[in-house]
């Protein structure tokens, strides 16, 4: 039971990253690899500032900002310098690896004496629940709040334009809008969310490690595809909701594999295989699916 709660909590936190990948991959049709760098960037910034005594809640907007800058970099490289989408992401991701090392070295632990968003004073309102349950509730709230904000945003004029840009950018140009700016905006939002996920993961495990970004794009893509494929027939389910459940389901699958004796060193292999299975299943069921 404890294990399930903690696995679901992982799913909630990583759902933030999935929302980000949903924006770039599904809405903008932009395969953004920056996420492998912006996720640990959020964690590195968080670890650095918390070790130096910053309030844990203040690290949330700070991580958002750091991720936004990373997304901006990829966006500018792609739009202003005309570098292909995939390569633009790879450039930023590679650069961020070094930047993260500069910020927080290869490992940076947050000691037990430092309060995180899960243990700081305001969590007292949750009473004397155990830490696992507090983490569960707080990360659920964060995931739902971000989902609602994102849902609201996608219904605004700006959000409508973002969806249109991924759908038909010729039309966006015909409407006298700069499609480049819209793409940059989408990348900024997506990477801000990825960094926020990194920030919360860092606080949850009380550590930053330089390799924690590896495979996050694959995770994000897999959850988006699992979510949207599973709920494809149910049109009343919002895509963000589908992605949210995709994230939880994915974490449960991985946890099951570990529980059944999968060595931790094979984890990324298992992630890749799971992703492959999801893609293959999608193209079987959906017939000729364009992006699968």
């Amino acid at each position, binding site marked *: 039971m404890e294990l399930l709660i903690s696995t679901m909590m992982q799913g909630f936190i990583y759902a933030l990253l999935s929302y980000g990948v949903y924006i770039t991959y599904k809405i903008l049709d932009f395969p953004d690899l920056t996420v492998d760098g912006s996720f640990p960037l959020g964690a590195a910034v968080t670890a650095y500032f918390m070790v130096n005594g910053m309030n844990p809640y203040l690290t949330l907007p700070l991580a958002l900002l750091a991720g936004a800058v990373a997304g901006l970099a990829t966006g500018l490289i792609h739009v202003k310098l005309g570098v292909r989408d995939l390569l633009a992401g790879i450039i930023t991701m590679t650069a961020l690896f070094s930047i993260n090392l500069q910020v927080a070295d290869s490992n940076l632990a947050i000691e037990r004496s430092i309060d995180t968003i899960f243990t700081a004073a305001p969590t007292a309102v949750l009473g004397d629940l155990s830490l696992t349950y507090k983490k569960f509730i707080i990360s659920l709230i964060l995931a739902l709040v971000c989902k609602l904000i994102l849902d609201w945003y996608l*219904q*605004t004029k700006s959000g*409508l334009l973002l969806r249109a840009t991924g759908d038909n950018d010729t039309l966006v140009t015909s409407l006298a*809008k700069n499609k480049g700016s819209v793409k940059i905006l989408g990348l900024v939002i997506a990477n801000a969310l990825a960094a926020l996920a990194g920030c919360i993961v860092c606080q949850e495990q009380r550590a930053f490690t330089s390799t924690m970004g590896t495979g996050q794009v694959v995770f994000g893509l897999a959850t988006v595809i699992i979510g949207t494929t599973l709920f494809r027939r149910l049109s009343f389910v919002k895509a963000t909701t589908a992605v949210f459940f995709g994230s939880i389901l994915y974490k449960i699958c991985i946890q099951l594999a570990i529980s059944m004796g999968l060595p931790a060193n094979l984890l990324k292999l298992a992630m890749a295989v799971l992703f492959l299975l999801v893609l293959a299943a999608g193209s079987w069921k959906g017939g000729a699916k364009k992006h699968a």
Partner: protein
Amino acid sequence: MLELKNVTKIYNPGTVTEMCLFDHFQLQVKEGEFVSIVGSNGSGKTSLLNIICGSIPIEGGEVLIGGENIAKMKEYQRYRRIGRVYQNPSMGTCPNLTMLENMSLADQKGSFCGLGRGIQKKRIDYYKEQLALLGLGLEDKLHVKVGALSGGQRQAAALVMTTLTPIDFLILDEHTAALDPKTAEIIMELTDRIIKEKHLTAMMVTHNLRYAVEYGSRLLMMDKGGVVLDQSGEEKTHTTVEDILGLFTKISIECGN
């Protein structure tokens, strides 16, 4: 209204495949004119539209709209005053958005897309009214994804979306070419009506010689980057499809087609 001065367009400059399409090309379109442009493939019709809209760069010359040189403007900036309907019906609408979302989007042309609600409830009646003018029943399909509509319905929707906000200039790039004859006829009639109602200046490229003769106030025939026929007013009303076809065939034979 629109003026092209000494426009030079060279494809693949500096390579063995270099091809000079326009060499100091001149054209003037007066306000309120509806210009039909015909010509064989490669005569420069679509290039002409692309030059006006900024979709392709030019090597020299000026493009003026209302006296303002727009040759240096980016494509998206030029569309503040220009509306364009493409040959491919899927270019003018977003397939994964609903009809209502598409209309709301088109309504945003010329204004800033901020954090206000994307769909203005009080505008819905206006959208319905505009779609109802088409007579295709699109006003009852506001919540249908546009990708599920037929090519003709999408092209009609694209036409309404393009002219929903005030524009000075309408560009029609073989916009009936991908439609079946009956639907093409409907779209062509709608186009003519919208242009007249909104007093637009328009340029239409078409392969349909009959449309070129029947519609519009001026007729241009292009060949190898030049205008070989330019008729308007009284002269145009006496022109028949046979006259045009005769000239068309003559040019084609000279080319060796």
